[in-house]
């Protein structure tokens, strides 16, 4: 039964894989690599089935019909990328960095489990789908860029300080990490741009545009930052090298964290619907009693209709 699979099933699999990655720090037995990959693969199978079960009514609700699904799909994309990387580079401790982020994103999504789905009109609108999907993949790419940035800085530090004797921790080469950082920077800029402009298109022809929505303006700032970082990286030669590009990807993630923070905790239309009913504003609005409480307490603002 597909419906029998819960979040705990695959989260536990990823958790065990992470424990095995930690074990690899102390003993580099082949079996722990194999087991870690098996647990991740088992987790991703359960994760896929879970998403399929959730999306049983795909025609009725659209592919991404709630923040819960949005987060679960983002985690799925991250895990799939991790699994492909881990299979191609089994010697490296990639899981040690990516799996915690996956677990945190699943945890955050599970936490917002009570959130009502997006409005049916919104989720069936193709622009809305593009908006949600590109922002989701953009978020995944920014997160992966953050991970490769962290790994670059650690690897660079280890090389500078001749700490390669620590056999347990094996990381990809600086060159690989640097090129991955560059790619994530460019790809995330493109995806966030698509997400942002599709969001604007969604609002075209409506009575009002929510310029004051913190998520809207912070996303705009994130996009401008990404464009600036990408242009800086393309024009200024030293910025293409090593630590600078790693710092850029870390800054991207901080901006993303700010946007997500405003989304969850700010008085944003993106974060609050009304009375548990799906929002029909044409964007990816949703309702959460927790956020509603905050919204009611702070401003008594009515969500936009």
């Amino acid at each position: 039964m597909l419906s029998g699979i819960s979040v705990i099933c695959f989260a536990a699999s990823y958790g065990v894989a992470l424990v095995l990655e930690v074990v690899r720090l102390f003993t580099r037995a082949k079996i722990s690599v194999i087991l870690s990959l098996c647990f991740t693969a088992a987790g991703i199978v359960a994760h896929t089935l879970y998403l399929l079960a959730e999306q049983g009514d795909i025609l009725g609700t659209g592919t991404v019909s709630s923040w819960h699904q949005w987060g679960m799909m983002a985690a799925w994309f991250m895990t799939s990328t991790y699994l492909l990387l881990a299979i191609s580079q089994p010697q490296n401790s990639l899981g040690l960095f990516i799996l915690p982020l996956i677990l945190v994103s699943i945890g955050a999504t599970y936490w917002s489990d009570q959130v009502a789905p997006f409005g049916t009109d919104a989720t069936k609108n193709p622009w809305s789908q593009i908006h949600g999907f590109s922002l989701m993949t953009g978020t995944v790419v920014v997160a992966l860029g953050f991970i490769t940035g962290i790994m670059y800085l650690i690897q660079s530090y280890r090389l500078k300080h001749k700490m390669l004797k620590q056999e347990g921790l094996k990381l990809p080469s600086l060159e690989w990490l640097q090129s991955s950082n560059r790619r994530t920077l460019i790809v995330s800029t493109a995806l966030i741009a698509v997400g942002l402009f599709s969001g604007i298109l969604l609002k075209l022809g409506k009575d009002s545009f929510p310029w004051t929505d913190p998520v809207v303006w912070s996303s705009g700032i994130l996009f401008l930052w990404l464009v600036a970082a990408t242009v800086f990286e393309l024009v200024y030669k030293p910025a293409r090298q090593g630590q600078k590009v790693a710092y850029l990807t870390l800054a991207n993630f901080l901006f993303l964290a700010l946007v997500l923070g405003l989304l969850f905790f700010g008085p944003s239309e993106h974060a609050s619907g009304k009375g548990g009913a799906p929002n029909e504003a044409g964007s990816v609005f949703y309702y959460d009693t927790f956020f509603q409480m905050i919204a009611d307490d702070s401003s008594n603002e009515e969500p936009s209709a």
Partner: protein
Amino acid sequence: MKLQMIGCSHHNATVAVREQIAFSPDQAQEALKQLRVRFPESESVLLSTCNRTELYTAAVDDNSCPSHHEIVQFIADFHHLDTEEVFDNVLERTGDDVVRHLFTVAASLDSMVVGEAQVFSQVKQAYDLATKTNSVGTLTHSCFQAAIRVAKRVSNETGIHKKRISIPSVAVCDFASNVFDRFDDKNILIIGAGEMAEETVQYLQGEGATRFTVVNRNFERAENLAQKFQGSAKPWDALSDCIVDADMIVSTTGATEPILTEAMYKQLEPKRFQRTLFMLDLAMPRDIDPLVGNRVGVYLFTIDDLQEVCNSNRKAREREWPKAEKIIEEETHRFMAEMNHRATGPIIKRLKQRANQLKSEELQRLMNKLGEVDPKTEDEINRSFDRLVNKLLHPPLESLRDETDASSHSGLLDALKRLFHLHD
């Protein structure tokens, strides 16, 4: 059955001696042919590498196998050397000692650099050559095939081959690979044209590097080295430009003062746009000022950093040594037991045949004397004779079997042959 090895290695002979009695592949082929002519009943395999020359000979009949002196004479004749000189520099191993030694050599435990993979392929090549020249037989086939199997087992079951212990290999495979993902698109600058530079370039080529630039005070030597690796040689004056273009620098000069100081590098730095630069300073005294290693994007490793890793890897290999030795000991015992079973089989068969023949003759004589005997009595007499033969043969065969398992049968086997006149 006799199995012996006569030869020398880096353990007991100097390079000069090893050079004198070494065999090139063509010479080895010729030597094996000559051995076949001179000792037609014996099997032979010749293993000749830069660190050892070993001639393995074997024969089912001990008397057919060439003696120590005959082999020494053969080597001396082949290389036109003095027999005494060869005799003083070669060692002889026989029986299970040969098997143990061959397994140790194939598993690279007897190499100058323990765990190096090259010797395994050299053992295989030596065996292949002997097979090609029809110099091998049952014993050498079994022995070399077992050696190949044992070497693989040691490699799979221990970590003795895993860690590199030569400075250039550690520099390239353990350090440079942490910086670069690929080497074919990297500009590699070699400063100096010594042996260390050459060895490092060999490892880099193994990793796919193709773009080499050699800079040396002596331009001719730079050109010679560059030619070997299809690289380019540049005069010493072009060093600064080469550093700007380089992704990796290997410095191995004999200079007494640093050839690249921090001040010099600072001047070149803007032209590099902080591109990653991996530097290997394999010179003593150092060629590169350690402060250069603090610059952005520069990863500098000196010979001390590498030596530390080499030593720790060597210790890690040593920790694997007992495990490898245990495998070799176990396999040697198994191999010798198998060989002994094979060797004792025909003797036991002959002994039983002889006993049965005697039994039949005596039985026949008795029956003739007794005349008409009822079948039941005849059957009882038959069984009685069978029991007698079996009881008589059981203790010597049991002892022979025990000695076979203990890998030292030859004394008892010879005694049996002599006591019961079990000759061919």
